[in-house]
């Protein structure tokens, strides 16, 4: 079995996210790769949530429209997702709540509400119960479910096991998912979101403080840091607003503590003034910027890639910045570590430009496979002579020192300043300091040649490899898969600033038709490419808040004769 998709739907409060993760874990234990898309509106109880878990023998990072199993905790789930059913699909549902009218596919109703009542279990255990039934239906051994529950149920394990078992016993086997474990030589992998991977990458590269004001879809970085940060000595702060966030980051950096902040569009707006300060005062800071549907409040829990232009030029004045857009959890881990390193190596702001899909989707994650990255040393002051915070050097990078330093004053300044850090309005010095700051971008760009800043995801084959898909961020998975299927080349631009024009040129060798695939309405990467002389022939754009499914992209490509 190559692909198996399960959708579980219900209302917010039904634990749909957790249920999806459990399904993902089951498949992971069987040796599959998984990808889970989680779809939810902006509310706390009610509404319609669903998790779409796809398992595959190959590494994946995209979902397909059609599903093999539909798990419905309520009627709305059936109504909304019946279109996804194939002839061979199967529906598992709460027989006390849901009616299967008009559905021709096979199904199995479980009296969830009754089972829970009998067991004296609270309503939140619905999902455990139905997952019991699910395991039976798809032929996953009870022992696997049992071990997953034992590991992850923090509360009321016994009762959960009881209702799961009831579900398992009352369902009928209909599929037989084979374990892949014999084929793939590996232990089950952890399943994490992009935001968790970002957090781990930052920690790996020596993060000392994380400051954020909650904002979907970036908040789970704050959650993670608040929970696990202390064991890494990380100071985690949730202050009054995003302005304070950005300025606190600069206070930490001044004192020598590596700091990151996290937000989404509206919160980032409030950070732009502090960003420009970081640019002028050459203060390293990492911004985890997770895109959602804009403008303004927009759709807080849905995705978009509408903020690229903004990020590239945010803040008054001109100063270099490092911007990377990871495409999945492993990218996220690796490049977040790199982003923190780059920030401190070049004393510039660094962006991890994510989107809701990368940040909140679940991926199986292999630390070893994500690439080796270590904390890099910051260029420290030698301790000789009088310290000058902004000393002129060959590459524009001035060695750092942090207070206290006996006999020295370490001075940082948002005004135009001299080498020591004292304000000056001198015309020549102004030009010279501007050149110094911009010089760092050149060295940063050179440094990037060591990295795969542009990645060829699929080489394509034969004739059709004259066409390439160009993507960034979460469209990595869907482009790679479509390209492999159709024999196209697929190219992911990971670093967006400094723009890796040379690497992109190399990756495009022989390509005659270039198709940008983006989740925005104005094709921002295509436009950026235009700057550097890359001509984009087609644009496939989606901007309804939802990610491309593999089918969406394939049919769009078909429509264009590709």
């Amino acid at each position, binding site marked *: 079995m190559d692909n198996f998709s399960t959708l579980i739907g219900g209302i917010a409060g039904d634990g749909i996210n957790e249920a999806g993760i459990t399904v993902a874990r089951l498949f*992971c234990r069987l040796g599959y790769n998984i990808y889970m898309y989680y779809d939810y509106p902006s509310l706390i109880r009610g509404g319609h949530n669903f998790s779409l878990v796809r398992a595959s023998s190959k590494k994946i990072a995209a979902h397909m429209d059609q599903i093999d199993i539909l798990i419905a905790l309520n009627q709305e789930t059936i109504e909304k997702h019946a279109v996804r059913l194939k002839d061979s699909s199967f529906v598992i549902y709460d027989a006390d709540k849901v009616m299967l009218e008009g559905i021709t596919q096979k199904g199995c109703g479980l009296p969830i509400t009754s089972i829970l009542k009998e067991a004296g279990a609270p309503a939140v255990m619905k999902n455990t119960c139905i997952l019991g039934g699910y395991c039976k239906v798809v032929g996953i051994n009870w022992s696997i479910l049992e071990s997953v529950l034992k*590991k992850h149920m923090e509360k009321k394990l016994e009762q959960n096991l009881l209702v799961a078992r009831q579900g398992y016993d009352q369902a009928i086997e209909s599929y037989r998912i084979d374990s892949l474990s014999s084929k793939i030589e590996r*232990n089950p*992998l*952890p*399943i*994490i979101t992009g935001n*968790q991977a970002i957090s*781990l990458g930052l*920690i*790996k590269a*020596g993060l*000392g*403080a994380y*400051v954020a004001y909650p904002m979907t879809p970036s908040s789970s970085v704050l959650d993670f840091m608040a929970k*696990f940060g*202390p*064991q*890494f*000595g*990380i*100071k985690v*702060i949730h*202050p*009054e*607003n995003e*302005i*304070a966030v*950005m*300025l*606190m*980051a*600069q*206070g*930490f950096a*001044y*004192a*020598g*503590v590596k*700091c990151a902040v996290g937000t989404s569009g509206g919160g980032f707006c409030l950070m732009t*003034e*502090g960003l420009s*300060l970081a640019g002028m005062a050459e203060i390293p800071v990492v911004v985890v910027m997770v895109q959602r549907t804009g403008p303004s409040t927009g759709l807080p829990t849905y995705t978009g890639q509408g903020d690229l232009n903004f990020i590239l030029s945010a803040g008054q004045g001109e100063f270099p910045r490092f911007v990377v857009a990871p495409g999945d959890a492993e990218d996220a881990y690796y490049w977040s570590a790199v982003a923190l390193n780059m920030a401190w190596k070049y004393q510039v702001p660094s962006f991890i430009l994510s989107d809701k899909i990368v940040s909140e989707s679940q991926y199986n*994650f292999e*630390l070893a496979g994500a690439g080796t990255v270590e904390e890099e040393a910051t260029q420290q002051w030698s301790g000789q002579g009088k310290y000058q915070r902004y000393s002129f050097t060959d590459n524009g990078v001035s060695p750092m020192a942090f*207070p*206290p330093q*006996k006999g020295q*004053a*370490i*001075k*940082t*300044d*948002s*005004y135009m*300043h001299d080498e*020591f*850090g*004292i*304000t000056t309005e001198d015309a020549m010095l102004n030009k010279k300091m501007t050149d110094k700051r911009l010089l760092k971008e050149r060295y940063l760009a050179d440094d990037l040649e060591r990295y795969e800043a542009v990645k060829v995801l699929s080489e394509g084959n034969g004739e059709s490899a004259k066409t390439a898909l160009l993507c960034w961020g979460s469209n990595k998975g869907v482009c790679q898969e479509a390209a492999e299927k159709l024999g196209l080349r697929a190219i992911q631009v990971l670093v967006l600033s400094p723009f890796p024009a040379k690497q992109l040129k190399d990756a495009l060798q022989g390509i005659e038709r270039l198709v940008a695939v983006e989740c925005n309405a104005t094709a921002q990467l295509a436009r950026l490419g235009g700057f550097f002389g890359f001509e984009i022939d087609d644009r496939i754009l989606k901007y309804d808040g939802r990610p491309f499914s593999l089918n969406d992209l394939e049919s769009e490509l078909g429509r264009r004769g590709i």
Partner: protein
Amino acid sequence: MNPMDLATYGKNTWCPGCGNFSILSAIRSVLAELDGQMQSIENVVLVSGIGCHAKIVDLMNVNSFYSIHGRVLPVATAIKLANPDLTVICFSGDGDSLAEGLDHLVFAAKRNIDVTLILHDNRVYGLTTGQFTPTSPLGFKGKSTPNGSFEHPLNPPELMLASGATYIARGYTHGIGLLQKLFREAILHKGFSFVDVLQVCVSYNNLYEAYNKRTYELKDHDASSYEEAQKVIRSWNYDGSDVPIPLGKFYEADARRLDQAYRGSMPNALDRDNSISELLENFI
């Protein structure tokens, strides 16, 4: 240490007669005196916003972060949290911390973070050449209110008291002895210290005469009493009336501080790698 050792080559560009000179001289002598006693000078970090007041950091040969308008306190808070051994002193203006950055001021007090804020309260925007600020009296004629402002002023010490500040005082730039005393107390106080300095702006709001006539130094005031503090603070509300203006320490208390909250140090790279691997186990 001689206070003049704390000077730099930075050119002083304040107007002749500006009250900021007194603040500069007072802080230099207090820091020079404290160096060697409590806190050696390299452990001191100065933070400023943007405004005439903020130029003070360019004139001090001491660690400093010349920040942006209104944002002294988040920077200062983080520096203190990063390294609680540092002594952090903020210079801010009435436009800076009462208009642009008011939220940070209230939160610094609420958190009782152990930093000192010296407010150069000239009751006008100096550097942008004379607009009304939150402490300008009703009817103030500035560039943005040529026919007189419409708003009553805020009473900053009252706001600080309501927000949780644990050291609150008022000084005046004619009266350098008292300024020194208050700065010393404020710096040594553990917790958030707020010193409202009636700093005269000779160019846009010259109140020397009024202040000389109306200010008096508090005697026998019980600064440990919230009620007493409030009474004396509310005895003058920054309007144009003729009531006496008290100077001195209004309030001091001991309370939990945010900088006590974060402990623990960072592991080495190897331990970190191990912890990451262990942590990932939870997600299998």
